[in-house]
């Protein structure tokens, strides 16, 4: 079956195509070049006056795993949405079905859960397997697990650490590694309430800097495309931009990705002790080649924060709205905390957080290095992306909202002085090609021959950019029409993206002993095989290539 998308205005940044009138051809779920078509074209879709982009990719969205389920359970009173085409679950903690429907209707075709606890990986994958339409994947959390900290404490070689990291990627079916509050979650279990970048944990005598160094190195050595995904120390604390900068330095120039950097770019100036340090952070972002970030923009309204960072979440529970929360220590592996929260436009701090996120977007010189996220649902639910795109593309719209916020934030932000408006080219880069590149998804985010035919078509004639991005008129997943004119046409089930660098199996022997001695399950049971993913979990695995052969 061959489908032709005819005469659309195509954006394919990976191939340096920007707003070019072009045809796109699809054969058996993949993109095919015109010259290689050997059969007759079965279907022609007229895309005149339409914008054609690869399906969007969300590289940081909390869509599966224990903490999401805790939020769903905790916030039962919010599950009262009336829209008959979905279930009644709330968009701040949506069901798996609603997650898939809302994403595909916005033209998102691939999403990544950034906090996959290794011990909870089976659940996270099973949940994500029940999300229709999208392809997915996860970043396994390391750096607070007792096994890793023991490796560091015992001065294990980088090569052993690399084996462990590669083993975790394989065993948990992940595509990347994330560290959350490096060492801090573990330190909290020993009753430490804060851990700065160069502060030693009381029990293991290890600093966050060492953890970041070892893990960035491991991913680099293994050739894993996605650099270490870092949720820095001191999340949300005024003045934390300094520790964010120290975390950047800890990578020693190796690739590193800082996540929801908005929450990590706070100064402590002014009479309220809270100010923007977006300029300081952006200077680093613009200067250092191997540094990327996603923003974690906040939006005003009710949401729920969920994080592996039990240390921070326990500190934040005082701000819970409504007044309930949960934190958990998990299996000598990690932790989690779920705290519902309402961002208020009348609040000085929340208004400034909103401005800081936008400042970072607008100060970023290279759209290949900054990604559009709200850290769903921590900053806002992912359904606010079209609104966020409008804030970036429309200065007047942005300033109108800014003018309604508490006036005193203007002393602590430069947002009102930033005239930049994002272009469609830049939006296409930051929501498609750039995330595909930083994750090593060769067949996503582009229209090269052989790539997955995940395609989103927007109506150029819709003047309101938010409306245009909220309701693409056509969404194609794996070559099949999933959404047409706002209607779901066919349920399609995606796959799970992983990466599997090589490792010395000897690490499994040591781990097996560790599990038998200290864990409450066996290593065998902890490992998720491809076959299990396929048959029991319910999502087939797609293994992406490493960048190169392992170095050590």
């Amino acid at each position: 079956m061959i489908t032709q998308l005819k005469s659309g205005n195509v954006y394919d940044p990976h191939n340096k195509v920007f707003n070019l009138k072009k045809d796109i051809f699809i054969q058996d779920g993949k993109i095919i070049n015109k010259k290689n078509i050997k059969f007759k074209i079965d279907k022609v879709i007229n895309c005149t006056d339409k914008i054609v982009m690869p399906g969007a990719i969300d590289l940081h969205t909390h869509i599966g795993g224990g903490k999401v389920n805790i939020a769903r359970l905790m916030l039962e009173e919010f599950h009262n949405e009336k829209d008959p085409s979905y279930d009644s679950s709330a968009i701040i903690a949506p069901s798996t079905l609603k997650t898939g429907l809302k994403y595909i209707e916005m033209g998102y075709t691939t999403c990544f859960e950034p906090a996959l606890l290794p011990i909870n990986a089976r659940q996270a994958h099973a949940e994500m397997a029940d999300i229709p339409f999208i392809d997915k994947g996860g970043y396994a959390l390391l750096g607070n697990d007792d096994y890793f900290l023991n490796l560091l404490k015992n001065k294990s070689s980088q090569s052993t650490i690399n084996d462990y990291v590669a083993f975790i990627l394989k065993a948990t079916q992940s595509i990347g590694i994330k560290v959350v509050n490096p060492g801090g979650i573990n330190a909290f279990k020993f009753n430490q309430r804060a851990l700065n970048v160069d502060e030693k944990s009381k029990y293991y005598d290890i600093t966050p800097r060492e953890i970041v160094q070892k893990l960035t190195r491991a991913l680099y050595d293994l050739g894993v495309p996605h650099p270490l995904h870092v949720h820095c120390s001191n999340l949300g604390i005024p003045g934390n931009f300094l520790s964010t900068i120290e975390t950047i330095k800890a990578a020693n120039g190796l690739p590193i990705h800082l996540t929801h950097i908005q929450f990590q770019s706070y100064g402590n100036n002014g009479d309220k002790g809270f100010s923007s340090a977006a300029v300081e952070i952006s200077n680093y972002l613009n200067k250092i080649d191997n540094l990327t970030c996603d923003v974690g923009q906040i939006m005003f309204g009710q949401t729920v924060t969920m994080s592996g960072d039990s240390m921070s979440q326990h500190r934040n529970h005082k701000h819970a709205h409504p007044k309930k929360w949960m934190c958990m220590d998990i299996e000598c592996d990690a932790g989690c905390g779920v705290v519902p929260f309402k961002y208020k436009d009348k609040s000085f701090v929340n208004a400034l957080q909103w401005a800081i996120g936008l400042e970072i977007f607008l100060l970023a010189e290279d759209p290949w290095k900054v990604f559009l996220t709200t850290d769903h649902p921590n900053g806002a639910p992912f359904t606010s992306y079209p609104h966020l795109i409008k804030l970036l593309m429309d200065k007047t719209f942005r300033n109108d909202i800014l003018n309604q916020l508490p006036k005193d934030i203007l002393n602590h932000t430069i947002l009102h002085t930033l005239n930049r408006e994002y272009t469609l080219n830049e939006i296409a880069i930051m929501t498609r090609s750039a995330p595909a590149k930083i994750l090593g998804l060769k067949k996503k985010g582009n229209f090269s021959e052989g790539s997955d035919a995940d395609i989103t078509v927007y109506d150029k004639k819709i003047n309101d950019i938010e409306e245009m991005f909220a309701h693409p008129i056509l969404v194609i997943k794996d070559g099949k029409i999933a959404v047409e004119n706002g209607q779901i046409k066919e349920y399609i089930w995606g796959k799970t993206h992983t990466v599997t660098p090589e490792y010395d199996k000897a690490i499994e022997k040591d781990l097996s002993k560790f599990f038998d001695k200290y864990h409450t399950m066996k290593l065998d049971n902890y490992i998720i095989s491809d076959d299990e993913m396929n048959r029991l979990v319910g999502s087939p695995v797609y293994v992406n290539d490493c960048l190169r052969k392992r170095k050590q």
Partner: protein
Amino acid sequence: MTSKNNNKNLVCPFCSLHCDDISVTTDNNSYKVNEKNNVCSKKIDSYNLNNRSITLPKKGSEFVTLSDALKNIHDLIKGHNETLIINHGVDLSGVRSMLNFASQRNCIIDHVNSKFLYQNIGVVQRTGYMATSLTETKNRADTIIVFGNKILDKSPRLLDKVITPKNSLCLKSKKEVLLIGDFSEKIVKDMKDKCNVTNIKFDLNMTNDLLNATLSSDLKNIKGLSKNNLAKIKKIIDKSKYLVATWTTSDFIKTRNPKKIISSISKFIVNHNKLSRAGCMPISGVLADATSTQALTWMTGFPSRIKHIEETFKHDRNAFNSEILIANKNIDVVIHISTINAGKLKINKNVKNIVLGHPNTSFTSMPDIFIPVGIPGIDYEGIMFRTDNVVSVALKGIRSLKLPTTKNILDRLA
């Protein structure tokens, strides 16, 4: 040739600890746990076929073919508009199919242990809550308070695996274990070598008073507890660096106010975290309660007691309570799904009863239709969730009776 002495590892589906270190010897379609004389071995072995096992579908007292049984179920459901599915324990694939079936047929779904679930999640839905998990408790907890004695019957290996383990990553000295309630002398005696155990025989109704009393600097006698004993408890608690409170809700269900007991424990733990570290670790029921709660929550937003109405799942913990629905005759047909339950299934003759159950299922009276289905972890591979809701296990199959799975049947009926 016989396949005897084929040693396999079983991942146990029969309680929420889901131990995965059980060695069994299989012989054709029977198996035997290699560990002798322990409560769990007997329990696991009891699911072997015996002369009362039913391996073919039955309509009333007559054997029928599977297709006849399915046709009969179709007829029963078709004529009626209210069908209730009661989950007495099944793996993830069963829960997924149950939901799919309910969405096609507009059914209600409830888990037989929902009443316990709602006691526990109340604290998460109303207040703050600090939780911990099995491996954390094993390795980090220097002090464990066990409220109520049923927990050790329910999950017999909790003691050896978690409360008094041989190894512990971070602890240098023996754990302090406080047993609150009526524990047998044998249990206490057995624990003495492995930990510092203190048994306080105490009325669980007074839990709130007990926990409050430990916070006060001025110790007084409280009802049922001497000042001396209170001082002993307080000393242990105050010294702890990582304190775990554990219970199973069925121990509280006959008390005057189970919710109050659970929230006072939770409040106590939250408070303890102001200066030290602590966590709650409730042990959930043995009927795959956690599996049902987790899967239904991610698929619908609600943990149980849901009904498919007008294209969506609605939840009402009172209106969709299976016990009340049946008692009030608001239901025409009940489909019981029971793949791991060792107890007798209550068949209420007010309604039509269909049972998809393991071959050794016993009933208070014969259901209208019975289809024997496989046991996850014995007959087929599956996924189940452990009590702490963070770990899930991959169950293996160890015999091949060729029984259909719950999923097979529900998918054919949907």
